[in-house]
């Protein structure tokens, strides 16, 4: 395992250095900037945690759909749908006088929004015969269109609509933060709870066993009296629920309003996280933390080195591909000998 990791890391380092040299950026300085920008100070670390929370939530959800053999690419749209419903509840509750209750309801609505968006893709798959990749992807673009329409249409800021998003909520409707630590205990709690809950669901419940059985052999599971279609929808609901909660956190805990890029690509990134974790629930939060650090560390690259911040995506993608390849190669060699 550690040998595989070292081999994959070497490949990533070599490839990234090549890309950087090609782009005309100094490799060592770039790597230093990324580490400095993510772990260099307590404030930077809190930014990483802020990314880690939604990323972990969305990744946990994907474990359910991967277990049953579904490629839930629609996770990106599910994050957005959750963010939209959370925004809706928070907007309606601005003058209610019970901010705590409104926040709680808002996050629940986020879960519902994500789950609803996932059910759409699930039904298109099980009843409509549309592959979940295309159903989910189409719905992602629809969700993005919906977010933009809301920001420029019904929910536009008083005066003029702008790409900066909807009006910011009053402080009372922000997810509580510990002032001098700048972290949200509620957010961290949600992410940790999601990990433990997912681990327990997949390992110890009948539902988890069904997911695995159908994922391994759908036909055999059907003859055993399991209902693959219904279980697929349930798996999609779990995935969408966690993704929606991630979207709700983006609204209530990070941006405090709806912005066009509310999902920040965390849905797609979560797919990479789970692939690199090799579908292991305990490894997932660690990989999510590493990816979050890469994302945050790359933010300042355009300022410091005139380098696009998409560099984090190049590193993440290379890492996943290298890890998959090294793992496959090793299994091959082991089987051959």
């Amino acid at each position, binding site marked *: 395992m550690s040998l595989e990791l070292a081999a994959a890391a070497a490949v990533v380092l070599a490839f990234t250095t090549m890309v950087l040299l090609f*782009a005309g950026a100094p490799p060592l300085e770039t790597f230093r900037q990324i580490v400095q920008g993510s772990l260099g100070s307590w404030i930077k670390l809190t930014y990483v945690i802020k990314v880690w929370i939604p990323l972990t939530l969305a990744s946990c959800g994907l474990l359910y759909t991967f277990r049953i053999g579904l490629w839930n690419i629609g996770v990106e749209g599910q994050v957005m749908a959750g963010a939209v419903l959370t925004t809706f509840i928070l907007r309606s509750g601005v003058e209610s006088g019970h901010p705590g209750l409104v926040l709680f309801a808002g996050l629940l609505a986020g879960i519902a929004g994500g789950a609803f968006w996932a059910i759409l893709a699930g039904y298109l798959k099980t009843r409509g015969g549309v592959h979940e990749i295309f159903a989910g992807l189409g719905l992602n673009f629809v969700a993005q269109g919906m977010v933009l329409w809301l920001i420029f249409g019904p929910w536009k800021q008083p005066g003029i609509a702008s790409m900066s998003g909807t009006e910011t909520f009053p402080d009372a409707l922000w997810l509580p933060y510990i002032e001098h630590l700048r972290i949200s205990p509620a957010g961290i709690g949600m992410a940790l709870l999601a990990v433990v809950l997912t681990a327990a669901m997949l390992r110890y419940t009948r539902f988890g066993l069904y997911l695995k059985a159908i994922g391994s052999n759908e036909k055999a599971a059907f003859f055993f009296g399991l209902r693959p279609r219904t279980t697929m929808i349930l798996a999609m609901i779990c995935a969408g629920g966690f993704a929606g909660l991630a979207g709700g956190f983006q609204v209530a805990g990070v941006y405090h309003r709806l912005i066009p890029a509310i999902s920040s690509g965390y849905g797609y990134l979560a797919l990479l996280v789970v692939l690199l974790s090799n579908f292991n629930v305990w490894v997932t939060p660690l990989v999510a933390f590493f990816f979050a650090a890469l994302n945050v560390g790359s933010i300042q690259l355009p300022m410091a080195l005139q380098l696009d911040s998409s560099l984090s995506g190049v590193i993440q*993608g290379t890492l996943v591909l290298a890890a998959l390849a090294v793992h*496959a190669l090793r299994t091959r060699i082991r089987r051959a000998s």
Partner: protein
Amino acid sequence: MSEFDLTIILAGVVAGAAPVLLATLGETITERSGIINLSLDGTLLLSAMTGFAAALTTGSILAGFAAAAAVGAATAAVVAVFAIRLGLAQVAVGFVLTLMARDLAYVLGGPFARVEGPLVGLAPIPVLSGLPFMGPMLFNQSLPVYFSMAMIFAVWWYLYRTPPGLKLRCVGENPDGAYARGIDPDRTQLIHAVAGGALVGIAGAAFSLCIKPGWGQPQGCEGAGWIALALVIFGGWHPFKVALGAYLFAFLQVMSIHLQAWFPDVPAQVFQAAPFPLMIFILVLISLAQRESVLRLAQEHPVLKALVNALTGAAPAALGRQRKSDS
């Protein structure tokens, strides 16, 4: 554009469809061999950037297209080698590559963003371009557009009228059977994945050097790769129907620009999202057309039968499947 000039609109459709058309034809070749290259969306961006950058630095449009084709072929080769030699899931590798190629395009393309660059000009064909109606539509286009039209027939000819095309289709349907007949499935798949990828690369350059000139973030072709992947299903893996889908899609895109002019209150982004629910809807229709109850009903209604026949086209039987090679 207040005047509704059909000739201009159709000429715009034929030109605008060219990149997506090339990408779908490339993916058709790849998928016919049994390999899914899911990386199209990222590949298009990366090859669009490479094509533009290469043409700008060398001053040669041809070099731009060649570089883009090489990038497309290389990306496809990664998918094919990972799938064939390492036995990895094609969908997983393709998806990771989609994101990675996109990010790579943004990182490497930084210096070329919003720079004035070369552009492929129109090359009207003498005499023919003077024809009424057909002239401006088919014979007053740029070279990449002519190339895209020629490729429809070339791909069809290759698939259905040549021995290598027959072998390619064999491998896509039944690689083990092909193997027993002395065809090397791995080699066939690798070659055609790379060839299809090269076409996708050319499609990327057709975007940045012709249809949506220039490089920037966003470039304007984001999402086109996913549309191309869906169009291959829509076209039932047949070059003619796939091409029809590409033209239909381009027509809808041109119409959405007109719709935008008619409804100025609706933000542009909504129209940009519009093709996607349509894509889902069409995929549902295609799936429904293959239901047994619909097929039985179709036997009694000639019109419905023709419609179902037009809509259905079976996927290559071994598409996306991992093969256990004995070697």
